């Protein structure tokens, strides 16, 4: 009895050790079977599950739409989509980036969706020479890391911040502005930019916490400062209740927020306080977007394309046109992306040498909230 146990134990261990040393060849794993037999892949990296899934969903679906249309049109160069779920968590992102870099068939990545994961994994994509186009990471300094592979298909906060400042000063003619950021990378960067543009008009700046629900204390502070405009740099989850709390506290200032609150969630959260708010966004209104994207999206998923959907569709299109044009390596894909110069559904897509959208084509739009609906107002000149 004891003998057999010993033998099996040792046998298993030795066998495992042998396999371990013999099977050290990760090379044979990339020749995968299945997945429709397409030669090349593009990936979407962003939150697909978890608490941030709501923000990743329009991006994923828009990329799916783009890939689907591409595969129907150009079956010879068909493309498989890899869904890389980073949950918006920067602690998970590096591993996923390593995985994508290792698979040589992946020629481009739409994402990472959030700035945090982008910062945590950008160097890995750079070292793997895998071009990425984020459709939603807007923190300005992401472009300052010297990453040649990094691109984004929307204006960063630095382009939005000054425009917001200009808008508040010139169009709204506000003398006193109260800034509130949400401590996220996105919010802090945006508020910094707006503060610079607004200069002495800023009477105070405070921060809220992500997931905060009670804004009574900050509402008191705002009320005491008696501003003309409250600019909130953050996302809708906190923006809605914040606007509501401000109104409840008797604040009469105009509530201005960025693209992060351009969501039905903001209106639901703010309820009656949403009307009269102004939203700025480096995104073209859907009805102004060219082509049939909005209609196609609705036909495929039964809902309107959410925030960043059009940008994600554009990002995917950049890669897909490359593959149609015969791009067969990451180096060629990078050349293709850098040379890309064509109209997209959200705006004209052309990248500058840092991977940003060419400054001349970025338009910041303002939107009004009227009767619980977000309606386009005008572009900021």
């Amino acid at each position, binding site marked *: 009895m*004891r003998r057999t*146990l*010993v033998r099996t*134990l*040792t046998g298993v*261990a*030795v066998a*495992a*050790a042998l*396999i*371990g*040393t013999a*099977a*050290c*060849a*990760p090379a044979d*794993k990339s020749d995968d079977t299945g997945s429709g037999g397409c030669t090349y892949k593009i990936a979407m990296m962003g939150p*697909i*599950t*978890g608490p941030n899934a709501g923000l990743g969903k329009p991006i994923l679906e828009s990329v799916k739409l783009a890939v689907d249309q591409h595969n129907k049109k150009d079956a010879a160069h068909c493309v498989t989509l*890899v*869904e*890389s*779920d980073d949950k918006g*968590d*920067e*602690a*998970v992102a*590096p*591993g*996923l980036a*390593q*995985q994508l*870099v*290792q698979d040589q068939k992946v020629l481009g990545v739409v994402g990472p969706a959030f*700035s*945090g994961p982008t*910062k*945590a994994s950008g*160097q*890995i994509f750079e*070292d*793997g020479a895998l071009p990425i186009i984020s459709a939603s990471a807007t*923190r300005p*300094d992401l472009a300052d890391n010297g990453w040649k592979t990094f691109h984004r298909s929307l204006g960063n906060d630095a382009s939005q911040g000054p425009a917001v400042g200009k808008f508040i000063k010139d169009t709204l003619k506000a003398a006193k502005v109260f800034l509130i950021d949400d*401590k*996220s*990378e996105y919010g*802090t960067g945006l508020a910094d930019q707006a503060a610079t543009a607004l200069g002495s008009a800023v009477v105070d700046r405070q*921060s809220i*916490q992500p997931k905060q629900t009670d804004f009574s204390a900050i509402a008191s502070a705002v009320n005491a400062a008696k501003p003309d405009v409250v600019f909130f740099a953050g996302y809708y989850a906190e923006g809605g209740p914040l606007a509501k709390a401000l109104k409840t506290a008797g604040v009469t200032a105009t509530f201005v927020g960025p693209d992060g609150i351009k969501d039905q969630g903001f209106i639901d959260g703010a309820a009656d306080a949403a009307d009269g708010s102004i939203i700025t966004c480096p995104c073209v209104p859907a009805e102004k977007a060219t082509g049939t994207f909005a209609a196609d999206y609705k036909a495929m998923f039964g809902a309107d394309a959410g925030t960043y959907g059009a940008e994600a569709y554009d990002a995917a299109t950049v890669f897909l046109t490359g593959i149609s044009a015969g791009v067969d390596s990451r180096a060629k894909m990078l050349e293709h992306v850098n040379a890309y110069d064509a109209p997209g559904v959200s705006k004209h897509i052309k990248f500058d040498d840092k991977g940003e959208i060419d400054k001349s084509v970025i338009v910041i739009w303002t939107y009004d909230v009227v009767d619980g609906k977000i309606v386009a107002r005008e572009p900021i000149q």
Partner: protein
Amino acid sequence: MTLTDKLRTAGQKIRTADEKRASFIQGARGRWHDLPKAWRIAAALAGVVVLFALPNLYIPGIPFRTDEVDGGNSFGFVLSTIAIYVLVAIGLNVVIGMAGLLDLGYIGFYAVGAYSVALFGSPQSIVATKFPWLICVPIAIALAMVSGVILGTPTLRLRGDYLAIVTLGFGEIVRLIAVNAEFTNGTSGLGGMPTPPGTWPAGTELEGTKLFSVNDSRPFYWLTLVLIFAVIFGVKQLERSRVGRSWLALREDEDAASLMGVATFQFKLWAFAIGAGIGGLSGAMFASRNGHFGSNSITLLLSIMFVAAVVLGGQGNILGVTVGTVLAFYLPERFRSFADKRDLIFGLALILIMVLRPQGLLPSRRRARELADRRQEAKEATIVG
């Protein structure tokens, strides 16, 4: 037979099966100890070899690797994460399993370690001393131990539950400071972490390039494994020493231990400091592996997951807590298709396992006996009552 009766008998059946399995494990352990020493060493060595070979291991037909699923995570990365968390669990086991102190804010020490590397090693930090990795890590351990002593001195006089909530508060304070303070750079965090020295040896594919980089987490896994073995060795020595016996005494009955002359406060503080030091070390490994650390990487839920993993595996027993941690953090990565329900499954599994096996999956023998005693007492009490 009513439904409740049926449920009850089913429950009893599971319980007896469970007891059988428990006795089998005990028996297996006995047989293992009866083996000739040479055999045991050979088997252990083989096991170690397998562990080191794991990131490159493929077994046809058994898709155990996390990168064998669609959109799966890099196996080397997942393994290194698990290894770092095992290190955390071993440290936490000193505090919870050996000294019996319930620490719910252990992530605080982990964060202190990670930020030490970030502050002293990253070129982006305000300190910007850019110390090499080999200097950063001792600083991380030292700072974590100091914070352990700072937290422990006033709070270790508190009773169990109060200690739990105070440590929970401490973890949350550390997290909020990380979010709000200037020097941590908040949610954007700090990048460009120093890495351990070394290049790929001759004969490998990447010969001559840096061994430790953000592009490949396998070397971090190997290094963490070495650290785990070293820490286990150290902890085992402690467990067998006067310190370990004092911990045991104060875990089982603090008043009695104190009466017998055990300096309870001093030994509790030691447990706290040593646990904190190991936590700091694992935080430092995590930060240098990721190359980036921001306040989003610290969540209180993670802290509680650590405790859950330790208790799930079997507190007090290093093998047990290791198994618990591996299960708690490997399964969700492997079965990503359940991603949406994995926390739910984890929560239900936690209830089920704890109800059926309060001593954990692989408890320490001593702990199992303590629990059996308690259960017996309960039985007698019901008979009397």
